[in-house]
Structures are given as C-alpha cells and as structure tokens.
C-alpha cells in the first residue's frame, strides 16, 4: 500500500510540475535592464534581410543608452499559413512584439483589436513626414487610425516576356483596352497552343485571388465598391459584374492555365515555371517580380531579366477607362496590442523603415519605397526599376478597404473557381459571388 501511495504521489507531482511549468510565462525583461523584444518574418528573403539589420539596431540603441535585444522569430510559411498562425498567437497574447504584415490582413487584425494604434508614435517620428501623402492616407484604416508602419510598397502591373512576344510577332506596345489585350493573347495561343496569361483566380491561390487578381482589375474600372466612410461594401457596384465577365472571357477563349490554377500552390507552375520558361508570357505581378520572384536571387531567376521582361499597365476594362497601375501598401510593421514593449518595438519598426536599413530590405524583397527620401540611398539608388515603381505610385490607383475584405476575398475566390472549373459563366459567377458575400458579410457590412 505504501508503495502504491508513493507511486501515486510521484505521478501527481510529475503532472502538477508539468502543468505549472507550462503555465509559467517567460520573462522578457531582465533585472540588468535589458529589454528583450521579438520580430517575426515568414519569407526567407525578409528573414535574411532583417537578420542582417538587427545588430545595427541593437548598437544604435546602445548609443542612445537603451539596452534592447532583438530575437528573430523566423518561420518560412505561405501567406495563408502565416495568417492562420499569427491570428492564434494574437488571440493568445503570444505574438512577437513586431509583426511584418501584408496589407491584406491589417484591416481584419485592426478591426478585431489585435494591433495597437500607432498614430501617437508616428506623429512624434520625423520619418513619418517623408512618407508619400497617398501612402499616409491609405494607411488610415476604417476607424481613422494607423495600425501598421508601411515599409514597402509596389505597383501591380502586367509583366510580359518581351523576347517571347517579339519573336512571335506580337505587339508589345501598351494595350489600351482589355479587348486589345485579349486579341493579342488569342494570337499567342493560336501560334503556341499554350495558355498565355496568368491572373490569380480560384481558391487555391488563397486571398491573393482578390488582392493580386480581381481587385486590381476592379479598382481600375470602379472605385465605389467599398466606402471607407460607411464601412460598407456595395455588391451591386457595376465593376464586379464586368470583372467576372472578363474572367469568363479569359476562360472561354482558353487563355488561362486553368489546370495549374486549381492545383495547390498555383503560383509555382505558372509564375515560377511557365513565365520564366516563356510558355506563359504575361503575368499579373507586383513590383516584387523584379527581385523576389525573377531576380538573380529570386524564386525563379530569369536571365537578363531587365531586357527580356517589361511591364504594361492594366488596360481599360470598360468604355472610358484608361490604362493604370494598381498600387498596394505591400508590407508594414504592426505591434500587438498585448505587447509589453510597445515603445521598444516601435523603435525597431522605425529603425527598419528609414535610411539604409529600409534600402537594404527594399532591394532584397524587390519593393518600392513608401518614402520620398530614399532615391539616393544605396543600394536602393542602384535599382532603377524599383525607383521607377516608387515614382509611379503617385499616378497609380488604390481603393482602400476595411472590415469584410477577408469575406469578399473568400467569395471572389469561390466565384472565380466556378469560372475556371467551367461550371459558371460571368453572370452565374457574379450571382454566386453576391449570394456568398451576402451570407458571409452579414447585413451590417453591405450597402
């Protein structure tokens, strides 16, 4: 009996000790005054770029009499995987102190109260005055506050293989309308038998079907589909139907690589295989294409990139529309509301969003600067394509959205999936989208 009791007590002790040790929170502030903060990145290029900059930040802080140590929480993930992971961490209050967030997730996180408003910090930071006015305007979310410090941006355009189209005898001048572009793509298809253009579509591409595929086309022909003032989506806004019709035309003419679009990771056979090989000579792509995707150290390098690849602006979709580039906020640093070291985290965000540290990151990821004082800062100064993209920001189109963007993205992905799987035409896809979006958004977010 005694032996049983001993074993029982031992078992209970082990369980209790395990439970208690799991519950204990690790302290992130040492008694010697060192403040430990963490930053997370989920793309290898950004991980490498920021890792190189951390020692410089720590040294700079030391000069200012602040003892701050930074830990990189690196985890290479896709956008969707990262969003899933960081959402759980934000809810649990376990997220790193600085989050490098894609713009598409910021409204949802800000709306839920996971991110700290940065307005006071930014108003006291001299770097904020160098941000382009349109970036500042777009950074203000639905409630008027800024929740992330944008550190890279870009312009979404149609990248095309100049060498391939020229060898096929296809015009490479800026197409004025989608009809013009479709006619050229049909010509390519007739000559090669392939599927000449890739635009994100369907559910496999995740949220990017909306942010990189559908929305850039929609925003060029219709800016009334969302109102920041009311926070409501207008599902009857005329542009939706026009864009679904365009997708339907692209499908019915056999121009989209529909099989690849329906596979997991559809960007791999299209952007990373088809475009570099020249079999898909046109791709919707942001500025990062010059570095992150097809640059010498990119995912799928294209030799002599600057000479064989060029960009068109998006052509006009409806009568009266003119060609345009679509700008996006790209990535920004956010700070969790539950972070215990917001001040130190903001110092890191500011350090990484100015001068050489920012220039290094922009060149690594292939993005344009959101600031007006970087054109002479190396290594950014040596990148004419990125500088040009930065200049194009002023004339590019952007329609800021807010709460409900995730649901719209979901409904658009599902509706375009119907098109590329051949089960719906433009009308039917639009009807399916409206029904789905109405269900998902609920009455409070619909005009």
């Amino acid at each position, binding site marked *: *009996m005694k032996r*049983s*009791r001993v074993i*029982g*007590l031992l*078992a*209970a002790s082990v*369980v209790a000790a395990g439970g208690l040790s799991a519950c204990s929170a690790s302290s992130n502030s040492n008694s010697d005054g060192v403040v430990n903060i963490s930053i997370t990145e989920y793309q290898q290029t950004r991980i490498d770029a920021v890792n190189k900059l951390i020692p410089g930040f720590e040294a700079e802080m030391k000069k200012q009499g602040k003892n701050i140590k930074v830990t990189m929480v690196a985890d290479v993930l896709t956008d*969707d995987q990262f*969003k*899933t992971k960081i*959402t759980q961490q934000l*809810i649990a209050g376990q997220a790193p102190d600085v989050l490098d967030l894609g713009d598409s*997730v910021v*409204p*949802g*996180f800000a*709306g*839920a*109260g*996971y991110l700290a408003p940065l307005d006071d910090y930014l108003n006291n930071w001299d770097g904020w005055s160098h941000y382009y006015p349109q970036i500042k305007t777009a950074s203000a979310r*639905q409630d008027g506050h800024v929740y992330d410090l944008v550190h890279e941006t870009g312009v979404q355009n149609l990248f095309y293989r100049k060498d391939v189209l020229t060898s096929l005898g296809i015009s490479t001048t800026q197409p004025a309308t989608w009809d013009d572009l479709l006619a050229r793509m049909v010509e390519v298809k007739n000559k090669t038998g392939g599927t000449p253009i890739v635009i994100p579509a*369907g*559910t*496999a591409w*995740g949220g990017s079907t909306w942010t990189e595929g559908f929305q850039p086309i929609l925003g060029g022909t219709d800016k009334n589909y969302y109102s920041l003032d009311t926070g409501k989506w207008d599902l009857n806004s005329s542009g939706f139907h026009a864009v679904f019709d365009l997708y339907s035309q692209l499908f019915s003419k056999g121009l989209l690589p529909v*099989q690849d679009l*329906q*596979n*997991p990771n559809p960007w791999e056979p299209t952007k990373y295989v088809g475009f570099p090989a020249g079999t898909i000579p046109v791709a919707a792509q942001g500025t990062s294409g010059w570095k992150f995707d097809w640059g010498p150290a990119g995912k799928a390098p294209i030799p002599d990139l600057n000479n064989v690849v060029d960009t068109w602006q998006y052509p006009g979709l409806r009568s009266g529309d003119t060609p345009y580039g679509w700008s996006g906020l790209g990535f920004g640093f956010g700070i969790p509301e539950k972070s215990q070291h917001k001040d130190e985290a903001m110092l890191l965000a500011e350090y990484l969003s100015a001068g050489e540290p920012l220039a290094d990151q922009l060149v690594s990821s292939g993005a344009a600067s959101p600031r007006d004082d970087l054109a002479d800062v190396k290594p950014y100064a040596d990148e004419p394509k990125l500088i040009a993209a930065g200049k194009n920001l002023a004339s590019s189109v952007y329609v800021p959205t807010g*709460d*409900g963007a*995730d*649901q719209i993205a*979901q409904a658009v992905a*599902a509706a375009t*999936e119907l098109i*590329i*799987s051949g*089960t719906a035409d433009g009308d039917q896809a639009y009807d399916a989208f409206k029904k789905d979006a109405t*269900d*998902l958004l*609920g009455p409070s977010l619909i005009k």
Partner: protein
Amino acid sequence: MTSTVTAPASALAASQPPARKRRRRRSTPLIALLLGPAAVLIIVFIVAPAVYGMYLSFTNTQLTGFAARSPKLVGFDNYAYLLTNADFLSSLGHTGEFVLYSAIIGQTVLGMVAAILLSRPWIRGKGIFGAAILMPMVVPEVVASLTWASVLSNNSSGTLNLLTSFFGAGSTDWLQVVPLASVVAVNIWRGIAFAMIMFQAALEDVPVELIEAARIDGARAIQVFRHVTLPLIRGPVFLYLLLTTISTVGAFGLVYFLTQGGPAGQTRIAAIYIYERALQFSQIGIGSAASMILLAIVLVLGLVYVRLAKVEV
C-alpha cells in the same frame, strides 16, 4: 463429495472481514489520486473544448474584423446556413465517398485479405510481407504525404509516371485528373496495417475445430469464411469499422498536404472545409457548427455499427 452453498452478495459483503473494508476505504484516495490527473486532462483538453465548441456554434464568433470584438448568439443560424450551403453539403458528400471507398471498402477488405493470407501456414516470407504492410502505419503523416506527392507528381520523374512510361503512357497529373481516387488510394495504403493487425488477432481466436468440421461437411473455402469465420469475428470487424470511420471522417493532414481540397473542391472533405472556414477565413462560429454536424453524423454511424455488431462499448 462436497456441496457448495451460494450465499447472497449482501451476506458476502457483510461477512467480509473488517480489515478488507478498511483497506478498500484507505485505497479510495489513492485511486482518486491516480485517476485524477487523467480525468483532469480529459476534462480540460477534451470535454471543455467540445462544450465550448458547441457554444461557439451558436454564435457569430469571428477571429478577425470588428465582429471579433463582440460575438453574439445567433441561435441556429449557422446550422441553417450550413445545411443549405452547397460547398458544405458537397464536402459532406466527398467525405462520404472518401470513407466508403478508402476505409470501409479499401482498408477493411484488403486488411482482411492480408490477415487471411498471413494466417495461412503455407505462406512463405510472412515476416517481410507483414513488415511491408505495417510500414505505412509507422511513417509520420507528413512524410507519407510528401512521399505520395512525389509518387503522384505530374512530371515525368514522378514514380507512377515512370512506371506507366514503361507501357508507353505519357505523364499524367494524377492529383489533377483523378484527385479523389488518388487520396483514397493513399489512405488505403496508410490504414491497411491497422486493419490487418485487428483481423489477424480476431482470426486467431476462431476455433480450428469449427473450420475443420465445416470442411469435413464439404464446405469450400469461401463458404467456410462466409458462414463460419465471418460470423465469429463480426465483433472485431464492426469495431474496426467504427474506429476507421471515426478516424477517416476526421482525416485532414494526408488530404490537405496532397491536394488542399482541390482541384475545384473535388477533395474538399469536411475536415478541410472546417479548417478553411474556422482558421483560414476566421469564421469560428460557422466552423464550430460544421464540426458539430460532423460529430452528429459520426455518432449516428457509430450507433449503427454498435447495433449491427452487438458489441458492448
């Protein structure tokens, strides 16, 4: 010759020596102490989340957006939405096909065949045969998925395409052309070992005399199996069906790693639908309601199996 008188239980208890009673009383705290941690873990990590999940299914809880700040009770709205939602109903259909072909037909039938073959005394190399069948069970799910992604790869160096090329066939994108059949085949491969182990153990308990008697009566091998062996192992067979149905309905990793539910939702089984809704699109309320519907379906199936097997669970 001696005679035995059976005393009533109460009389027996009354006649128990006081020392045994004291021992039982003294051991009660120890039993509670030993069971306590397990009970606490079950309550904290299984019962409480399930109850909370049920509560969430009646709310419009979201993980992102302004709605995340103030979730509200919405009654049966999520259930009504799901039961009229084509995507969800379609995912239930895919789950049914996946369970039927991979678990009920594939794993059970092939597991039974493997168990019967391994129980034959004339089979040589049982160890190698058994190890080959058991191997898929010990391979981690992610490793198995990546291995099969390589086997089913669409390029010419994919293992299956290499094999078919010997017969002059061109490369095929198996996960695109026959996605459901592909994931069914992979799940059969992975689950056959457990079926074989269970059926082997059951077959060993079948009295040899009964089989020999049936043979002497002129029964053929199929008749012996149908009329003698199968009725005797019905309990383990239905128990296996119950277990494999539960685990296959909840299957996620294997299918997600291979197809992520595509193409065009052809392999979007219920678990993937729930993952997409609850975690990718942050709609925890709807995801929880979908989980509850799935739980109800599994419970009904479980009851049917138990009823058919007359197994005491």
